[in-house]
């Protein structure tokens, strides 16, 4: 039983990382109706930036905050410069542009920092707590805490600020928002900036365990896709719940089902994604796409 609980705790920690990245995908999907395939590579790039900052003598938390600021401006810049010119074009065009971004950012990361694997410090001590006989790694608790705190702050921003309200309005009806003097273009850019921040948090939390390399977020991005689809691709709450659930389920399956083991974790995520698409394409919390003709 204690081991079962330990598996759940460590599943929640990795699930929190998937949830952050899934939420980033959902944020962009809600406002622009596309999946940003470069989300993972953007996160990798910012995580490398954090590594460089720390390498130049900054301690962890200042580097963390500075990285989030850089990620935010980077996300805004990407929307303004690269996405905006194709904003009104068919969906497939925007998706291909994000795939171009994926290729380019991955190569640029490898160019700047080299392709070899680097270690990334964790802000949390490599220690464990004993909670009624259940050994809990502080690293896991910290990862979970940071990711969930970010999600909460973001929720507060959307719920309680005027800008947040404007952004929600734009996601629902851009034309009506424009008539109410909301600057739609900048709201979209802001959305990309916030998504980049979420990605950066996910990247920095994942890096101590998966180590830094130019393709480190690729696998995590797949889990995030699966989590977003599981929760409903247009539902922010769904992304968070889906991410946490996926982290726990995959951890339990890989521990207790011999067939899955550690090797088939990723294909299991794919299987979950396909099963959700067959049984409930709109996910747990999503809305059925209904169109009036």
């Amino acid at each position, binding site marked *: 039983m204690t081991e079962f609980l330990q598996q759940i705790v460590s599943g929640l920690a990795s699930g929190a990382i998937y949830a952050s990245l899934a939420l980033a995908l959902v944020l962009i999907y809600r406002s622009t109706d596309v999946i940003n*395939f470069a989300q993972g590579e953007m996160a990798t790039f910012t995580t490398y930036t954090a590594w460089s900052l720390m390498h130049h003598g900054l301690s962890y938390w200042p580097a963390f905050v500075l990285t989030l600021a850089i990620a935010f401006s980077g996300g805004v810049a990407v929307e303004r410069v690269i996405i905006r010119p194709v904003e009104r*074009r068919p969906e497939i065009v925007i998706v291909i*542009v994000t*795939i*171009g971004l994926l*290729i380019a950012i991955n190569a*640029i990361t490898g160019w700047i920092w080299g392709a070899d694997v680097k270690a990334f410090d964790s802000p949390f001590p490599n220690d464990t707590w004993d909670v009624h006989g259940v050994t809990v790694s502080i690293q896991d608790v910290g990862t979970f805490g940071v990711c969930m705190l970010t999600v909460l702050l973001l929720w507060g921003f959307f719920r309680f600020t005027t800008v947040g309200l404007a952004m929600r309005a734009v996601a629902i009806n851009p034309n009506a928002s424009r008539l109410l003097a909301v600057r739609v273009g900048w709201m979209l850019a802001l959305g990309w900036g916030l998504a980049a921040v979420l990605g950066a948090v996910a990247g920095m939390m994942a890096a101590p365990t998966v180590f830094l390399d130019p393709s480190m977020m690729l*696998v995590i991005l797949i889990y995030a896709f699966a989590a977003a689809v599981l929760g409903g691709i247009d539902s922010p709450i769904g992304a968070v719940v889906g991410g946490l659930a996926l982290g726990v389920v995959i951890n339990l399956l890989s521990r207790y089902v011999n067939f899955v083991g550690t090797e088939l974790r990723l294909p299991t995520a794919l299987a979950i994604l*396909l099963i959700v698409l067959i049984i409930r394409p709109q996910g747990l919390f999503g809305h059925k796409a209904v169109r009036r003709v």
Partner: protein
Amino acid sequence: MIPLPRPLYTALKLAALAAVVVVLALLPRFTSEFRIGQFTFVGIYFIALLGLNILTGYSGQISLGHGAFMGIGAYVTAVLTLGRKGLVLFGHHPPHWIPLGDGMRPTLTIPIAFVVTGIVGFLFGMPALRLAGVSLALATFAMAVSLPTVAKRFEDVTGGGGGLSLPLPATPFGLHVSTPHWLYYEAWGCAAILFVVAWLLVRARVGRAWRAIRDGELAATASGVSPALYKTLAFGVSSAFAGVAGGLLAIQVAYVNPDTFPLSLSILLLASVVVGGLGSLSGVIVGALMLEFLPIYAQHPPFVGQSFSKQAPGVAFGVVLILIMFAVPAGAAGLLRRFFRPLTKPVPTVSD
């Protein structure tokens, strides 16, 4: 300039096609065996890109797992070529319910790779095409990343991480051509057949249905076209093409392992098809040439240092992809069409 009448334009097109065929047929006479090998790869990529263009260019869906389907085709060819005997010789024990012979001629496995990969694609496409928009891209992306791990897991059939070595290629049927020449003609022979198949498909009823869905799913549905059926069909056909390309690749390099078909291959395939021109079968050749030769020439890039050389193809592909979407969404074929526009524009009539 006086626009050409329609029949003359068609004749011009056919002449260009004939010229390409003649060049491809005679190329081996004038180049080294090393170059022939490279052009064999161009032929293989050409087949894969034809399939991807049917899916992306004609039916408007994105696959990021085309390389994975090449991988499935490659494994079909490898396993059938070795047969049960061959696998046992390598110390693998495939389960008995899998119908395996005692080894086949590599060339004869190609049609089987076509059928098997096509069926897998069709089955995979059924759930993957449930959500509108990008669900197929998502699912195929996940597939491309997970295929290597699946291949490693089921090592009794796939040889696991060590891969499967095929017998070295040889010229079959007692023909009097050298083996590289044979592989070249084999690849381009398949390419020619599949080009005709693709050409017939996109001009037939099913091709019209694909374009109708791409250009307006709602209108297509209202006209009695089932989007789910035709999209899945497009994905099946495109996978079958990828299977042939993968099978040929396995024969050419005489070796298959899980990392022969990484995600990066799938992504570069998509980039190449966009560069060649979405919705243009002849533009595919440009994409295939670029896919084979850009990484080779980018190893000595101008203006930048050596440390960049490994990443240069990636940066180039990414930037080119974005710029094409900005400026010429129809790719190389679109540029060419624009260039010949004065020749092909219909004559203005009085009513205009």
